[in-house]
């Protein structure tokens, strides 16, 4: 196992390969409803853009369906990215840290150790209320892009998760 590691320090107090690895099995999928929430959101956008493209199509000297075709193609791509991307989204709560990953085209995975959590928050958008979904925001002192937002949780679950993270991080405060 030791030879697996590409990194070897001079004074190894620990073996790299014995370190806890953040692996795919650690991650939990988001609620399926979250996908429907996103689809609803995109559909509303689609409706608005399609209507305005129809108006443009009719009022200009193009055929009325031409702008609509372009808009539909773009949006079907967006739907596809959302669909495929949903499988990638996930969060992991381990003993000492919380992680979130997402992004089909631009994958990113962020981990915040509990001893660096500044505070946590549950929030819910108006649309999410319809689906009974909420999100947990984990703030650090490292600025906005280092914070984690775990979206796509049932509201009770979000509150439970927030309490859990708060409890674990308050040990260090």
């Amino acid at each position, binding site marked *: 196992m030791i030879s697996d*590691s*590409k*990194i*070897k*320090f*001079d*004074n*190894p*107090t*620990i073996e*790299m390969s014995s*370190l*806890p*690895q*953040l692996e795919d099995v650690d991650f939990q999928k988001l609620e399926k409803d979250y996908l429907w929430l996103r689809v609803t959101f995109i559909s509303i956008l689609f409706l608005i853009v399609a209507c305005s493209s129809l108006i443009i199509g009719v009022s200009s000297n193009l055929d009325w369906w031409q702008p609509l075709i372009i808009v539909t193609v773009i949006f079907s791509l967006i739907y596809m990215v959302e669909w495929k991307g949903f499988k990638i989204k996930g969060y992991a709560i381990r003993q*000492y*840290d919380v992680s979130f990953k997402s992004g*089909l*085209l*631009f*994958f*990113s*995975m*962020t*981990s*915040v*150790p*509990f*001893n*660096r959590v500044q505070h946590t928050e549950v929030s819910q958008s108006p649309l999410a209320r319809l689906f009974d979904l909420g999100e947990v925001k984990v703030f*650090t*002192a*490292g*600025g906005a*892009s*280092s914070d*984690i937002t775990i979206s796509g949780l049932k509201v009770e679950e979000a509150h439970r998760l927030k309490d859990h993270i708060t409890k674990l991080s308050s040990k260090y405060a």
Partner: protein
Amino acid sequence: MLDLSKPQRQSKVGIVVLFFKHLRKAVNFIFYFFILKYSTNSGMIFLWAAIAAIVILTLVYSILVYRKFLFYVEDDQFVIDKGLFKREKISVPFERIQSVHIDQNIIQRALQVVGLKIDTAGSSTKEMEIAALPDAYARSIQEFLIDKKNLEDSENQIENIESEFEERPKLSSKPMVELSFLDVLKVGLTENHLKTSFALFALINGYFWQNQDFFSNFFIDYIEEGQEVWISKWLLILPLLLITLLLISIVSSVILSVLKYYGLQFMVSSKEVQKISGLLKRTEYQIPIDKIQFLKYSSNPLRKLFGLKTVVIKQASSKASSDKQSLMMPGCKEFQLEAILNELFPELKLSSLITFKANPYLKVQMALLFAVLPSIVIGLLGFVEPDFLILSILWLLIGLPFSYQYASKMYLDLNSEAMCLRKGWLFPKTEILKYYKLQSVALRQNVFQKRRNIAHLDFYTAAGSLRMWQLDAEIAVELYNYMLYKIENSDKNWM
């Protein structure tokens, strides 16, 4: 004895300090009256009356501001009560005080008073600033506040209780960095003049357009007379203008450098680092050692000739990008930098460093982004104006080696406790960080990177984020796990 329980006023001469401070803002108005006078052809008396009115108003305003400005201590908080039109009561609890600075500008120096500034942790950006205090008094307030703050801190952390009885550490008698007058001149001469002159150009341009009517009235005769000359000779005039700006930039850089860095001294004690510098305005700036998040040093082609490096020490702050929250020292020599690193980052010497290079794909990425793409855009303009085709090829020829060199100089050195990020070719910079100062880690990989199995690694600290570009994915994942492990297993406080 220092008694702050009753509201205190600053020194009477504070009126003068405030007057000059406000006058500096009022000068802008005078300039507009100047424009008004010339554009309406009103008499000299009008201008003088306007200036007199502004000066008197500023004086009255300063006196009132002085009268309404009080500071005192109340319930473990330092309070400033101020404001003429809008009363403001700013209070900061002792434990939220980050640092207390004393500085002195030329007017304060002439009046033999100093200014006191209090930095707070947290997002409130309210100004805690007292304009004029006798030097000894200001220092006793500074000492008082820092003692109080340390007391609060150690009450919060029982294990630190011993430090409460420690005296405030004496700064090491010998400064770690000391700039001679010659060093300061070198710093001014080796400033990035291209950047400064372009900034100057933009500034002049902006000011010119803002007051276009005024200036065109002024120059109209010359412009109309020489219109043809202007247009046909623009090829000559533009370089001349740039050279003039370059000269202005060099001269002003040298002057600014002398004003800002004259007699720069940098000292390290067991608790804090301190910088003192400035010719007319002596500024003292200190950062508690615990608050230091990372250190950065950089250079440029001219400075490399003199062997000079700019060292920046970044401290935890809610405004990570703000320069005010970091301590900057240009003109450090190699041995001085070495001494600072030995003192502040002994971890680097703990064990040898392993070096990772960015994946060669970075060269492709940089070449595409900074050489090929811009060149194509410029080339497309060639359809409109054939001259652009030459420019496009020129850009490509210059851009390719630059981006290649830049991309091949991206390294991550690390050992078990700390890391160095080295990047840049003409403007090399190195960032040094201890793992336990990290707030979080992120791994980013877009579709193109996924195909090549490489990824970016982002390191977030309370003083801003750092990125290692294009690491091989296995190494990136391993480092990600390792750094998380180091953060989670460190009981050291990141601030």
